[in-house]
């Protein structure tokens, strides 16, 4: 993917941006701006137990919700392409509703709307010694169900990208539909699914912050409560931003590794025979062309 911007113009823009950032930081160090860096460094290097729990919860909820989303997405995609009409209709309704409404509305409706009219109450369940409070259970499930609607379209695109000759060949070999999907089509579809899936997980890591409205103490909510006590919004939310960047950047590297592993045995990948370089993995696809990789 070649960038339409001239390389030197983009380089100058980046340089200007860096200089501005440095200038702002320096001016912020003057006594007029009331910044207390200690809160920032403490949040990063000596996080409170509550903050550690918040970060852990963000990661766990993201992973579980994404897995749930992928499973639901695969089934919804296959149902959407099924010959049996009720499957198609059900899948279309599911995708339409959960892609057509904001996640916040879904959370308020399912977590507070349903129980208030007595239709459904979210239980607190116990996995052995671990207790999962109702709001975390509800929030994770709704995140996963919401994600499934988006994954359905991504998985469908992946399945459609596999040469129909593959399905014909498996049928002629006597494979059943389930076997064809599991052993032939989905593994090949995976290469097309992984980049947007990676994008979705990147989004999921940040979207968990919306669970603050149902009082889940993930990273954002924990930061918000702490800042409400000492009013150090600049330092604490700055640190929260760094934590989110850390999580999404590490995921970026993992995603690149997965893409390269799946690309083994093929000549062409999105950014070169060995996959995206460090610039591509760090800053995304456009940056690939900046370094003349």
């Amino acid at each position, binding site marked *: 993917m070649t960038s339409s911007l001239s390389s030197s113009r983009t380089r100058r823009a980046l340089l200007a941006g860096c200089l501005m950032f440095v200038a702002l930081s320096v001016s912020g160090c003057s006594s007029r701006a009331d910044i207390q860096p200690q809160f920032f460094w403490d949040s990063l290097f000596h996080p409170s137990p509550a903050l550690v729990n918040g970060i852990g919860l963000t990661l766990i909820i993201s992973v579980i919700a994404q897995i749930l989303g992928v499973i639901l997405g695969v089934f919804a995609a296959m149902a959407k392409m099924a010959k049996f009409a009720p499957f198609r209709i059900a899948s279309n309704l599911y995708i339409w509703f959960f892609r057509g409404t904001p996640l916040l509305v879904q959370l308020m409706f399912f*977590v*507070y709307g349903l129980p*208030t009219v007595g239709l459904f109450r979210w239980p607190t369940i116990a996995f052995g010694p671990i207790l999962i409070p109702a709001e975390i259970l509800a929030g994770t499930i709704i995140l996963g169900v919401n994600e499934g609607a988006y994954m359905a379209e991504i998985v469908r695109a992946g399945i459609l990208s596999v040469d129909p000759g593959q399905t014909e060949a498996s049928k002629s070999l006597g494979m059943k539909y389930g076997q064809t999907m599991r052993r032939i089509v989905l593994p090949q579809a995976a290469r097309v699914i992984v980049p947007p899936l990676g994008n979705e997980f990147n989004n999921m890591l940040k979207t968990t912050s919306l669970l603050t*409205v149902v*009082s889940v103490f993930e990273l954002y909510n924990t930061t*918000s409560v702490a800042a409400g*006590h000492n*009013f150090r919004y600049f330092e604490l939310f700055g640190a929260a931003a760094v934590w989110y960047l850390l999580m999404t950047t590490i995921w970026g590297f993992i995603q690149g590794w997965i893409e390269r592993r799946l690309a083994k045995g093929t000549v062409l990948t999105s950014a070169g025979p060995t996959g995206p370089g460090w610039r591509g993995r760090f800053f995304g696809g456009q940056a690939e062309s900046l370094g003349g990789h």
Partner: protein
Amino acid sequence: MRVIPSRFRFAGVFAAAALVAATVLIAGCSGSSYSLVKSGTLTVCSDTSYPPQESLDSSNKAVGSDIDLGAEIAKRMNLTLAVKSTVFDSIIPALQGSSCDIIISAQTITKDRLAAVDMIPYFAAGQSFVVLKGNPNKVNSIDDLCGKAVAAEKGTIEADHIAGTGSGYDNTNSLDANCKTKGKAAITLQVFDADTSALAAMQAGTVVAHFTDEPVAGYEVVQGGSKFELVPAMTLERGAEGISVLKTNNSLRDAVKKALLDMIGDGTYTKILTTWGVQSGAVTAADVNATPAP
């Protein structure tokens, strides 16, 4: 771009600088003795999810006992009132960021807040529990809260009281500590950006009680028809609430204080509170003049 001769450029820059300096000087030495966010207007930050003290009516206009007090203060200062609905948890930063001149939002006077702003006592309220009608979870004493979940608004003294956070509570006098010393399970605190969301959580059954200010609790019970009830024996700790002003804005603080004292003196203050049914929270002139103690 045409090249401007250097002598004209210098003159232009000098004129612009002089104009800026003049504007700053004039604004700084203006006739009115205090600086306002918007001249001629008293801009008040308030968390309008807190009826009867402050809320929004069906046309999204701010109404409530605090709003009426604000309007009266503004009138006596010859200003018009403008209310800015602000999330309670970030209301002091809003004041510090010059979104408004003062905060009237049922803020209990605490050491945390006094460290950041000046507060003028103007009201007093206890902390009360709202439960579902019939008290199905049998919340009759603070011990009954042990092992259960309670909802409060983020950044309020009620949230601090349960968890032992903030400057007024710690792990000796919080409700959670009370459970621990009696060997019972901890209280789970759920917090929400708006007080009305905390009430919704109680309606949905994720918590057993909604912990909020006494006048608000009373109002919720009345407005909820037969859905809610107050736990009267459990109203705790009446504390003073204050109007927040920036520490650097002494003249504004004094003007607001004077208006408030005049209102108490001629009975307007009591009349406003009685209109909203919150006269039990009235304070005296002596309270207003006292140095705020958290």
